[in-house]
């Protein structure tokens, strides 16, 4: 993306800025301010962090991708690194290149790894901060220096921090303004004294001036719930899902709702089932360990046909696994978790706009089909902030569908005992009554039941009830969202397949490959259950290789498509092979890694029939080339 290598005075269209230091030093909020300032200037941003499962201490960093076009995935390179300690430089060494600038606190005598070629700009960040007010302002001094380096107008940055810190009083606002000015001044002085007044970084092209929202997937889910008329959230705090709760705690009291913190995830899901039975829209958000605890009650919602929405923000598993790191390894638990046959819907948003819309859709589908709906988020989608067009979350375009229900008049006509909650109807979704409706009384039993809701072990009834609950999911095309989105040529050589935040790394990876002349298409899976296997087979049929890109060790998505018979469908159409590119080191794919994996798989000859599935390639932090699973 960066164009300085050509030695011409280009405008940059993308800069990756990063700040690193010790957890608890305000690194996150400095990153947030940078992201919001850039948004104020009309740039698109994508902002991510590295953090650990501790409150204070340990290395942490925040990175902001600043671009003149929409961006929704992380990149490896860092163009401007603000280092508050040496560890921040050491940990980011692989991200720096010859054009990178490191703004470092001169207090610790910054040292670059040999041969990095980056430019160090050592500024007295802490000393300047102490002169103004307090050492804590060193981040703000660094922000001022960064803004100057990127060519941002100082007044606009000052105006933003004045708004942000206005509530803390004039002294704080004044201190921030001074710190920003001090940082900008120090940077200018450094360039004058050491680099002949010339910036090592070409100027960033101006933003379009449009104000967007800066929001994470977790917050987008929360706003989707509010827009959908959900007024109850029952939850147990868990990384990385607790931000959904954080978002709603101040909002729900304004609209007559409540966030209820339960004693565990069993209780959280149980609460939602009760609320759903009573007719309210309610949901829970959790991560892998919580999802495991919810499994039994998920089956209760399925067999009682109670609307239910769960948001699973996946993290590294199993057990406590990597609680602060990214993974997509809950797939099979989301699709098949709980004992018995318990069909459900699983939606897979890939960016913040989809996280908002899928949450609204989840509530509508839960009501339309009387079913559990899981929104499959992941740590990267959940936590990292992106710019979002306000038109994408226009409240006047949100539609509410409460699904089939029985009216008071219909119940009155049926009289006492006349209503059959689980009547056998075409399509399987029998209208429901809500507690409070006269003559609508019924039993919602976790035990098998007849159309009236009465418990029965009758075999013929059992068979019909199983079919009733399954047939609701027969038509995947009618869900209000396409099962998948394909972008690419009709006859691609390679198709990259992914869901969730990985799908955005894949989109950008495909751009790199196209520039190299590869005929590549991308499939973003939007619905994981019911799985759009027919559409997928149609798209993959003409291709040579389908590369399933996912963040887990066991190639769960590739396994899922085999379970659905993709290999047989492909064999009937041509030669397309299913291969995997995996990453399970706790981090999302960079687009460059997707491209590298794709190049490697295209080099390999077709797998001989009868030799089993191709061995997966693995990417990991520190690997520059994908390696075969057996080699790691």
């Amino acid at each position, binding site marked *: 993306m960066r164009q300085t290598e050509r030695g011409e005075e280009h405008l940059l269209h993308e800069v990756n800025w990063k700040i690193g230091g010790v957890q608890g030093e305000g690194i996150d909020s400095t990153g947030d301010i940078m992201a*919001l300032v850039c948004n104020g200037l009309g740039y698109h941003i994508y902002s991510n962090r590295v953090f650990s499962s501790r409150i204070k201490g340990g290395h942490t960093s925040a990175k902001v991708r600043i671009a003149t076009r929409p961006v929704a995935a992380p990149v490896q390179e860092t163009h401007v690194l603000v280092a508050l300690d040496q560890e921040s430089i050491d940990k980011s060494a692989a991200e720096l290149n010859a054009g990178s600038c490191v703004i470092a606190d001169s207090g610790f005598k910054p040292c670059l790894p040999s041969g990095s070629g980056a430019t160090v700009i050592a500024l007295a960040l802490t000393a300047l901060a102490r002169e103004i007010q307090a050492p804590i302002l060193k981040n703000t001094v660094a922000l001022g220096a960064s803004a100057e380096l990127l060519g941002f107008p100082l007044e606009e940055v000052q105006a933003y921090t004045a708004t942000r810190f206005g509530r803390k009083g004039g002294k704080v606002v004044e201190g921030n303004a001074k710190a920003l000015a001090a940082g900008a001044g120090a940077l200018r002085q450094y360039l004058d004294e050491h680099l002949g007044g010339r910036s090592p970084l070409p100027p960033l092209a101006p933003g379009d001036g449009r104000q967007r*929202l*800066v*929001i994470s997937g977790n*917050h987008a889910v929360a*706003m989707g719930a509010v*827009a959908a*008329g959900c007024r*109850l959230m*029952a939850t147990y705090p868990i990384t990385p899902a607790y931000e959904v709760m954080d978002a709603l705690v101040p*909002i*729900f*009291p*304004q*609209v*007559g*709702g*409540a966030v*209820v913190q*339960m*004693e*565990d995830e*069993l*209780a*959280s899901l*149980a*609460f*939602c*089932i*009760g*609320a759903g*039975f*009573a*007719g*309210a*829209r*309610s949901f829970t958000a959790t991560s892998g360990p919580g999802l495991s605890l919810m499994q*039994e*009650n998920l089956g*209760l919602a399925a067999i009682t046909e109670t609307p239910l929405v769960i948001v699973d923000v996946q993290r590294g598993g199993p057990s406590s696994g990597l609680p602060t790191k990214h993974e997509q390894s809950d797939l099979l638990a989301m699709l098949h978790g709980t004992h018995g046959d318990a069909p459900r819907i699983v939606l897979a948003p890939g960016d913040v706009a989809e996280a908002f819309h899928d949450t609204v859709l989840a509530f509508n589908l839960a009501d339309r089909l009387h079913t559990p709906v899981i929104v499959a988020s992941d740590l990267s989608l959940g936590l990292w902030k992106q710019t979002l067009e*306000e038109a994408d*979350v226009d*409240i*006047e375009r949100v539609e*509410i569908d409460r699904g089939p229900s029985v009216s*008071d008049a219909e119940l009155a006509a049926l009289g006492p005992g006349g209503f059959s909650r689980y009547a056998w109807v075409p399509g399987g979704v029998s209208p429901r009554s*809500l*507690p*409070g*409706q*006269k003559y609508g*009384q*019924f*039993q*919602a*039993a*976790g035990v098998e039941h007849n159309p009236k*809701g*009465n*418990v029965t072990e009758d075999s013929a009834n059992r068979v019909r009830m199983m079919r009733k609950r399954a047939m609701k999911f027969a038509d995947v095309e009618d869900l209000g969202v396409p099962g998948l989105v394909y972008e690419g040529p009709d006859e691609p050589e390679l198709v990259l397949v992914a869901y969730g935040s990985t799908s955005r790394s894949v989109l950008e990876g495909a751009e790199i490959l196209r520039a190299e002349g590869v005929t590549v298409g991308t499939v973003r899976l939007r619905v994981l259950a019911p799985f759009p296997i027919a559409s997928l087979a149609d798209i993959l049929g003409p291709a040579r290789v389908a590369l399933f890109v996912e963040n887990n060790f066991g190639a769960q998505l590739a396994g899922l498509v085999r379970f659905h018979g993709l290999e047989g469908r492909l064999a009937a159409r041509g030669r397309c092979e299913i291969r995997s590119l995996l990453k399970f080191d706790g981090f999302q794919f960079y687009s460059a890694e997707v491209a590298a994996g794709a190049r490697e798989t295209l080099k390999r000859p077709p797998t001989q029939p009868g030799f089993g599935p191709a061995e997966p390639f693995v990417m990991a932090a520190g690997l520059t080339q994908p390696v075969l699973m057996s080699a790691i």
Partner: protein
Amino acid sequence: MTTMRGALEMMTTTTVADWKTSAPTWWCPGCGDFGDLSALQKALVAVGYAPEEVVIVAGVGCSGKIGNYVNSYNMHVTHGRTLPIAMGVKLANPHLKVIAAGGDGDGFALGMGHFMHACRRNVDMTYIVMDNQIYGLTKGQTSPTSAPGFESKSTPEGNVEGAVDPLMLALTAGATFVAQGFTGNQKKLQAVLEAGLQHRGFAFINTFSPCPTYNKVNTFDFFRTELHDIDEDPGYRPNDRIRAMQVLLQHRQLLQGVFYREERPSFHELLPGFSEDKPPVNPDWQLSPALWGKLLNLYR
């Protein structure tokens, strides 16, 4: 849906027949649970609810079948999870009368964690435990309320564990209504249930509900002989937690009646911005663009 009225504000006239269903009972002849069912139906008539405004959330086990037999909205749920499900019902629509019911295994084995939290939260609901000191449906294993030394299929040499004391636990956990009844004393049990149903807050009622098939120790005769009545003490006032604990300890919990009752706002009444007039079951489905814009300010 119908507009609900406050449960205590208006009486609906019903008969016991209005609270019956056509489902045949699956309990053994002589089961104590028949007594719980009958007393509950009579109490519902007396307190003046309508069947459509009552939700019974029942657990797994013999006792969990009680919802099948009461004409009401009923959930027959997962083992041990009645209380959080009942809480969800209440928060969704506070106009409903919510009753959770289950056995000693359901409530004090799997459900113990939820029980403690329900007590301290003071959600407005009635929790009826049908305690037979044994697992009946799985044909006779020791339960959390079985006494030490109790011989059963799972403890043929005698129970080596101590017994859970639900009343003391409820008192220490902050329950605002704590009572006990016995299915062999219908009049008393009905009175206790009526008081519990009328209590605004978390009402816990433990009921001795003998299992004639598998528990040959805690029988109807056992309770008729051993059980005392708190009302035998004319000076007893159920307004002192410490006093309640003392009398229960003195009588080894073999007491019936209302031991403790306290009036304080229930859970949903304390939630900021939460209104019975606009409950989550019936919110403003379409937010105004002005309010929406205000909420989005957080992300600008």
